[in-house]
């Protein structure tokens, strides 16, 4: 993936560039808003990572201008602010996802990988297939090796989200945001409990597990 990072904190930026490089991504870096906007509108990127507070030009205004130019590159907004409606203003400006500092790198990586995939075609699939597990979005039926699996509505949505991003790491926060539409941090391991229930319905009695726990990051479904 080709990523543009617009971030004024040099140390955070160099760490991020190195970590993204280790994860196999090419990252360009701009340390102020004007340069960042010029680079973003002049070159093709898979994902933009934009800090909200930047010298010379505010992060939100960069996103707004890009969207006004009909630039559809996915944008992840980073912010150290804790404002109640920060997320809303960030997304309203045209951002695709929002991450509050400080964040775990695994969280950021999982999110930009999902974002980059989102912009590629094949979005409107009516069914998902992972190994011998099949999920039909229209009839809302789930089968594994031809055997029907009964799921609660929320479990169905959980599995649907995981299968939509099959082969990608999804974090607990991403699941909480996308399946429950909650944007906060629970103290307890509430997602893990739901995942272990889902896992017992999907993987129990099958030789190859599909649902994997990625240590320190989240979950992934793959064959």
């Amino acid at each position, binding site marked *: 993936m080709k990523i543009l990072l617009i971030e004024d904190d040099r140390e955070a930026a160099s760490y991020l560039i190195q970590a993204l490089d280790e994860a196999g991504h090419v990252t360009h870096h701009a340390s102020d808003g004007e340069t960042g906007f010029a680079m973003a509108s002049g070159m093709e990127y898979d994902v933009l990572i934009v800090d909200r507070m930047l010298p010379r030009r505010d992060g939100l205004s960069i996103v707004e201008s890009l969207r006004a130019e009909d630039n559809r590159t996915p944008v992840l907004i980073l912010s150290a602010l*804790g404002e109640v409606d920060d997320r809303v203003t960030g997304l309203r400006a045209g951002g695709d996802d929002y991450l*509050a500092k400080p964040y775990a790198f695994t969280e950021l990586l999982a999110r930009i990988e999902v974002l980059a995939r989102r912009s590629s075609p094949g979005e409107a699939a009516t069914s998902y297939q992972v190994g011998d597990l099949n999920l039909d979005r229209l009839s809302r039926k789930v089968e594994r090796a031809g055997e029907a699996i009964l799921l609660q509505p929320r479990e169905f949505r959980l599995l649907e989200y995981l299968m939509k991003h099959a082969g990608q790491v999804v974090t607990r926060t991403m699941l909480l945001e996308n399946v429950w539409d909650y944007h906060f941090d629970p103290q307890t391991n509430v997602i893990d*409990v739901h995942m272990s229930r889902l896992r017992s319905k999907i993987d129990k009695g099958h030789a190859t597990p599909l649902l994997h726990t990625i240590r320190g990051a989240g979950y992934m479904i793959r064959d």
Partner: protein
Amino acid sequence: MTSIGRIWRTSTVRLTALFILIFVVFSIALLAYMAWQSSLAIQRQQTASIQRETAILMRVNDQQGIRALIYSVQRLSARPGPGIYYLGDQLGQMLAGNVSDMPAHALQQSGYSSFSYTRPGALDSNGSEENTEGFALVQTTFLNNGLRLVVGRDIIERRGYSAIIFGGFLFGVGGIIVLSAIAGGLTAMRVLRRIDTITATSTKIMSGNLSERVPVTPRDDEFDRLATSLNAMLDRIEQLMKGLKEVTDNVAHDLKTPLTRMRNKAEAALRDESAHESQRTALEATIAESDQLIRTFNALLMIARAEAGAPSGAFSDLDLSAAVADVAELYGPVAEDAGMAIEADAGEGIRISAIRELIGQALVNLVENAIKYAQRSASGPGRITLKVREETGRVLIEVADNGPGIPEDERARVVERFVRLEKSRTEPGSGLGLSLVAAVAHLHRGTFRLEDNHPGVRAIIDLPRSI
């Protein structure tokens, strides 16, 4: 009608009414005194002139004889005015004068008396005489030749004078009452209008628009002085709020950045495959600790934000029933794993204007607390009940458990920041959960309280129906 009621309730109108009352009472007293005193003065004056004329006529009688007396009385009688004259003999025969029907009692004894009589008036345009009713105060004198001399004054005119005073009084007082009522009403309306602008401004400010100011007119009256000092106070408050926001923003930025770096470095070190298992454990613990620090920090910031108020645009229509049912569903499996049950009785489609994120966070905090404490229940299996109830004008969200409960004298204290009861010190947590719930309730113009659930705790978020 209500606006008249509103005007009546203003202090200006009440003061005006009080002043009118005082003024009327004082005017009545003053005018009564004036009428009384002037009546006395006129009476004294009239008595004096009666005595003077009687004396003159007696001297005429003594020195010049009856003929001159009759002539004098006739001449005096012919003069227009309030004078009353009568000269008659012992048999009641009138010799001269202008009152023919002199009552007997006035003639039978000397001294003062008074009576009503018919007074022959001036010739009118038709040539007939216009008689007027009169009331006289007279002095009867027995002359040494046996004649009766009566000299008096018509006092109807004195009464007329009183009537003039009384009429003037009525006109004056009536006019003053009407005019001051109008003036008072107008002043009250003006005052009310000024006060209303101040009220409107403070309502807007309370709903989160801190940049509103009370309008100041160029009249520079007492309201403008009040408005100016209110505005100065608002400037100061806005400045302080802005300062607080800046401080929290800066603290957020300046403390979160090094925290991010610390976490990043630990993560980077963890990615190094050559690390020892013990080192990895230490690094993972470092990350977990920093996450807990971040969480505490975020909770503090969130409380500060909620306490500072939110722009009205942040509120949206929220299906509270669905939100509560969602939380119950999210935590159902967690409770089940801990050997408890969550029951939700969230009603159907109860809606409020709210910030969804914050209501959700508050609910989650309460449910997590309940899960933490209900499982230590001695009274059978843990049970958590979520309820949404509607009362007139209010919506109540209840989260109840059957755990050990909180002693009554400590219920208020646990809502304070970082307060944790002795027995819960061993549990994980920051001591900010309930503070956040209270701040969220206040942000939504509601209250938060803890009640006894016999056994256990019932946490109640009490919100107004419409915000």
